[in-house]
Each structure stands twice: as structure tokens, then as C-alpha cells.
């Protein structure tokens, strides 16, 4: 997927002016909050489980090499193949080769963010193989040729009119004047279209929420059942997974599953949580005859041992974006790549480079809501701050901003000079602002005053001046 993160500011401005998007966002945000809080309130152990979740992931990451090797050995014992891929190109090539060997013409797909990250669909299409997205949200996005805007609700930015419109334009063999009076009608039409595709596909590609070292299983979590049809019906199943998805045991996975659905959709448990282990067994009446895991690094091993290792705990629940005030007004597309919201602001620079995505960690108010809802306690604001520091160190911030920051740093280290500068500045502001109460415009601070007013300082000097006067008064 093409990275447009450098244009975050322009993307965000466009998003704010998009009335359809604003309507969708004003619906999805509050509903997601309410659902999560209800589920969390119903489980008194939730906070303690977050600590457990964090500890399980930390333990795994500290021994990631061991658990990956243990996992791979179990997959192979169950007749599966593990394809280790360092880069996106290697992963795309591995998927294509499996599909070619299977003689595949169409490939069904369960929702997978790693597939978006790797650009699997474009690669298959360019090589004459048709990928069919089967998650309802992904399906309409494929028809509209749009990327997902949210990691669990890819089409949250669309309104019902968009669904109707797209279906009328795409399913042209159906009567144009058919009714979509109920949401159900939209769902039924998609179900009917996709049923045939499920049954005809030669290969099914899913993602994985977890990989289990104890058993060599890949785990998917869905509500629709599309992921299960994708991995059960075709002769070949490919699971795409990044290296940090591995956990040691079923018990570890189970504890994380208790957090996942509650944090993601506010359900106690998703409808289908499915553990796939190897190939169809003797006597089984269904299931794939080939099972492949494409195990992808694509920049993650570089995060191990750095301040960004914490980010590898992420279980992709989307709670951080659902609770982010910036995401809540810009939506996901503004972030310009696969992963939006706070988790995207931390992960994207790590995967595509801080030069391309350095703006994203600035798209934060540092309100801390993301960290407070994250089921594995990732310190997202702190990690965004680390990126800002790196961005500054690598001279990626604009020159005026750099000069201003350098001047501030120089002053901050020299208390006398700092106080003098403050005294001059505040005095000037107080003189200009006398009788106004607040500034609606200030030279050099247009970006700040555009959305709010700056209160004019009261006459009487800086805080330090007043404090010293008060202290002197007391002593006297």
C-alpha cells in the first residue's frame, strides 16, 4: 500500500471537511466506547487481566526466538509448512508461489491487516490470480478500491447510502430498482454473492490473531464466519502472520482472548475463535489438504531490544483508535498507511521509516486515553514521544520549528535569561491585550489561534515575578 503519511496534515484537513465521514465518525466512536465499558464493567478481573496480558507478551518477546522455533516445529509435525520471510517482497513471492503450485485462479481472503501491509491483493492480481475479500467490510472496500480505515471495522467510514450505491453499481446483473429498505437486504445480497466465491476458491488466505507454540496452531477471531469458510473450504489454506503473534500455550492465548473481544467490540467473546493445526487428518470429511504459514518479519525484529519493543505486544484490538480524540475527527485514512490511530502512529514509523511517517506521532494530544484502555498496557504516548525525539535528532522537523525549539532549549537551561525573556514577552502581550481579555490572532501562532483564543496575560508580570513579590511581602 502506498504511504501517504507525510501528507497527514493535508489528509486531516480534508477529513474534517468531509461531511459523510464526519457523520460516520460521530456514530462509530461513541458506540465503541459504550460497548467496551459495558463489557469491562461486567468483568471485575479486567484490570488484573491487563497485567497478565502484558506479562505474557513480555515473556514471549524476551524469548521470541525460542518460541518461534518451537512453534515452527509443531506446525511441521502437523503436516504444515512455515515460510520464514524477512521482507514484504519475500512474503508476496511465497504466497504467489503457493497459489501457482495449487493452480489457483481465485483466492478467498479473510480479513487480515498483515495482508494489507504486504500488498498481497495487488501482487496476486498483477499475476493473474483473483483475490476475493470475504469480510463484509473488506468486500465493499474491494469493490470501491479503497483501503480500510480501521483495523477491526475496515468500512466504519461508510454510511448506508454508500453501501447501497456501491452494490447497485457493482452487482449489475441484479435489478437496479431492487429495495435496500433494511440493512438486512444489504447483508443478504453480500452473503449470496460471496457464497459462490467461497465454494469455488482454490486457496484461502487468512491472517492470524495468535500463533501457539505449544500446539503449532494459528488462531483467527471473527464474527461473520467468513474467515472459517475461507480456511475450511479450499484445498489450500495460507495463514499470514507476523512474528510477534506467537504465544507459548493455549492458556496464554486464552488469557489474551479474554481481553481481545471486550477491548475490540465490547463482546465477551467473538462468535468464532478457531484454532487451525496442520492439514486435514485421515478420516476427516472436510478441511484443507495443504496448510502454509507465511511468517513475516518486515521490520519487527529491528524493534526487539529497542524502546519500541513494547509495541510488539499489540493484539490489534483497536481500542486505542476508538478512544483517540484525533482519530475521532480525522478517521483512519488520514494516517496514510495500513495502521491508523495511536498504534499506527507508533508502528508505522517503525515499519516504513520515520522519514515517511514522522508526522504521525505528532497527531496526538497526549491525553493518555489510548494507554489507559490498551489491554496489554502499551505506553503509547511515551512511544510517540520517543519518535518525536528521533524525528528531531534526525533533522526531520521543519527548520522554523527546529530554530524555535533550539532557542527554547537554550533559554530553558539559563534561568536568568529565561525569566528575562518571559518578562519581556508577557509584558508585551499584556500591553497589547489590555482590555481585550483574549487574542483571536497572534503573529506566528496562527495554527494555534485558529481553533481557540489565547487569554491575554493579566498585568503584574510573570508567575516568578509575582511569586518573588509575594515571598518578599511575607518576609517583611
Amino acid at each position, binding site marked *: 500500500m502506498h504511504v501517504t503519511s507525510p501528507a497527514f496534515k493535508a489528509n486531516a484537513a480534508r477529513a474534517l471537511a468531509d461531511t459523510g465521514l464526519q457523520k460516520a465518525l460521530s456514530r462509530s466512536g461513541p458506540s465503541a466506547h459504550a460497548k467496551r465499558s459495558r463489557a469491562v464493567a461486567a468483568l471485575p478481573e479486567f484490570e488484573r487481566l491487563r497485567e497478565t496480558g502484558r506479562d505474557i507478551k513480555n515473556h514471549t518477546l524476551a524469548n521470541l526466538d525460542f518460541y518461534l522455533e518451537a512453534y515452527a516445529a509443531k506446525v511441521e509435525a502437523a503436516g504444515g509448512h512455515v515460510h520464514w520471510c*524477512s521482507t514484504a517482497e519475500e512474503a508476496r513471492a511465497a504466497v504467489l508461489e503457493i497459489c501457482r503450485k495449487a493452480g489457483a485462479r481465485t483466492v478467498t481472503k479473510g480479513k487480515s491487516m498483515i495482508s494489507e501491509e504486504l500488498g498481497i491483493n495487488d501482487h496476486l492480481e498483477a499475476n493473474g490470480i483473483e483475490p476475493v475479500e470475504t469480510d463484509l467490510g473488506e468486500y465493499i472496500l474491494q469493490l470501491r478500491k479503497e483501503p480500510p480505515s480501521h483495523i477491526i471495522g475496515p468500512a466504519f467510514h461508510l454510511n448506508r447510502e454508500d453501501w447501497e450505491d456501491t452494490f447497485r453499481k457493482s452487482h449489475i446483473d441484479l435489478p437496479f430498482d431492487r429495495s435496500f429498505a433494511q440493512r438486512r437486504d444489504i447483508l443478504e445480497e453480500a452473503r449470496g454473492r460471496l457464497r459462490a466465491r467461497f465454494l469455488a476458491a482454490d486457496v484461502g488466505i487468512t491472517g492470524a490473531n495468535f500463533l501457539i507454540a505449544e500446539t503449532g496452531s494459528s488462531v483467527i477471531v471473527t464474527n461473520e464466519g467468513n474467515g472459517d469458510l475461507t480456511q475450511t473450504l479450499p484445498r489450500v489454506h495460507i495463514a499470514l502472520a507476523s512474528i510477534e503473534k506467537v504465544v507459548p500455550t493455549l492458556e496464554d492465548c486464552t488469557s489474551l482472548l479474554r481481553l481481545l473481544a471486550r477491548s475490540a467490540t465490547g463482546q465477551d467473546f467473538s*462468535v*468464532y*475463535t478457531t484454532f487451525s*493445526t496442520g492439514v486435514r487428518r*485421515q478420516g476427516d470429511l472436510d478441511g484443507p489438504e495443504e496448510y502454509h504459514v507465511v511468517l513475516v518479519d518486515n521490520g519487527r525484529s529491528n524493534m526487539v531490544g529497542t524502546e519500541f519493543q513494547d509495541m510488539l505486544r499489540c493484539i490489534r484490538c483497536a481500542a486505542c483508535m476508538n478512544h483517540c480524540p484525533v482519530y475521532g475527527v480525522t478517521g483512519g485514512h488520514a494516517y496514510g498507511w495500513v495502521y491508523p490511530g495511536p498504534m499506527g502512529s507508533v508502528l508505522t514509523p517503525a515499519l516504513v521509516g520515520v522519514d515517511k511517517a514522522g508526522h504521525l506521532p505528532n497527531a496526538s494530544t497526549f491525553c493518555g486515553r489510548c494507554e489507559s484502555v490498551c489491554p496489554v498496557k502499551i505506553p503509547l504516548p511515551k512511544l510517540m514521544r520517543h519518535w518525536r525525539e528521533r524525528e528531531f535528532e534526525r533533522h526531520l522537523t521543519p527548520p522554523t520549528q527546529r530554530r524555535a525549539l533550539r532557542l527554547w532549549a537554550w533559554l530553558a537551561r539559563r534561568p536568568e535569561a529565561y525569566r528575562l525573556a518571559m518578562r519581556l514577552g508577557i509584558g508585551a502581550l499584556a500591553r497589547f491585550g489590555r482590555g481585550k481579555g483574549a487574542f483571536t490572532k497572534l503573529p506566528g501562532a496562527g495554527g494555534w489561534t485558529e481553533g481557540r483564543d489565547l487569554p491575554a496575560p493579566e498585568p503584574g508580570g510573570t508567575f516568578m515575578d509575582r511569586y518573588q513579590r509575594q515571598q518578599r511581602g511575607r518576609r517583611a
Partner: protein
Amino acid sequence: MSREAILGGIRRGLKRGELPADQQAMLRHRLESHPRHLIPARSRLPHDGQVALFIARVEAEFGTVERVPDAAQVPAALMDYLAGQNLGPRFVMAPHPELEGLPWADHPLLMVERRRAEGTDQVSLQHGYAGIAETGTLMLPAAPGRPTTLNLLPETEVVVLHADRVVGAYEEAWDLLRAENRDALTGGFMPRNVMLVTGPSRSADIEQTLELGAHGPRRLHVILVG
């Protein structure tokens, strides 16, 4: 090879080489003993309470439950359910010995086929392996007698589950599988596929509004025996 590159990259990040043998042995012990973590108090109940919780949770997730005192009543209960839902008498049944052994001959109106499911099947009858009270979840491990397609393709799935197979937490269901299942291919206990099913299929992709029956069954009915 990329395997070495990835493992090497991880080890460089962790500032160590391959783990020493004693630490590997400790981790292997953790895998083999698979210690449990915190289990929520919600399901720490006597068995009756767990069964009641299971039923309440299935219903809260838009499933339905009917309890029959013994297995011989399952065919009649199925017939009543199908009639009540205006569904025909035809269904595809998991070729599981426990289901095969039910008195189908007493109900000649029911049209049963014992096989995996196909795209046009309307109703399936599945064998339930275990029920998990915590969230009203059915554990359905794949086996020759429990095809996965029965859980996915028909519009209506009916699951026969013995009440004594209801446990409190997921961990207890995993332990049942560990104790009872032998996989001929791996020598382990995991079959090719284990589905944990909580209610009928649904989607909230259209304006975050819940609709039942996305790609999987729209109805999930549990006949609880005993």
C-alpha cells in the same frame, strides 16, 4: 536463509545468542506444564450453576437452548424445533456415534443425511464436545464424526450437548481435550481444527448495527441433554 536472518535479528536485539540449554529447558517445561493464569470468578460455581450460566450466556448471545432429560428425546426435540421455525424436515447430521445411536427410526418424517455440509444445506445437527459456561461457548473440535462445515454452511445449526460436558472456563475445556483426544498424525491432542462458537454468525460492518446471519448460521440452537 530468512529463518536465520529473522532469528539472528531477534537475538541481536535481545543482545544474546541462542538461549543456553538450561533456559531452554525451563521454557520447554513451561510449554509442557502450560500454567493457568487468572480465571474469572464468574464461572467458579457448582456444576448446576455452571449449566445455568451456560444457558443464560448462550441466550444472551442470541442462541437458543432446549433441555431434554435424556438423549432418546433429541429427535423429537429437533422435530419440534424445525416445525417451530418453519423449517423443512431435511437435515445433515454429523456422523458421530452418539448421534447415530439416537432413535431416528421412531421419527420417519425426519430426513437425515450423514455427511459433511454443502453450500445448499439448510439445517445441520452437530455433536457438541464441550460447553464453556463463562461465555456460553461451544467447543467443536474437528473429527471424522464432527465435520467443520456443519458449523458454517447451513443457515441453522443445532448442537446436541450433554449437560455433564459443561465446564466453567476455557482452560477446563482445553484440559478435557488434552486428556481425551489423541491425534494420530502428531501424537498430540490438537485435531486439525477446534472451533469455539459463541452464538450465531453476525456482522456490525454496516453502520455498526448488529445483524445476525452474516456468512455462517443465522440460528444456533442447543439441545442440552440431562
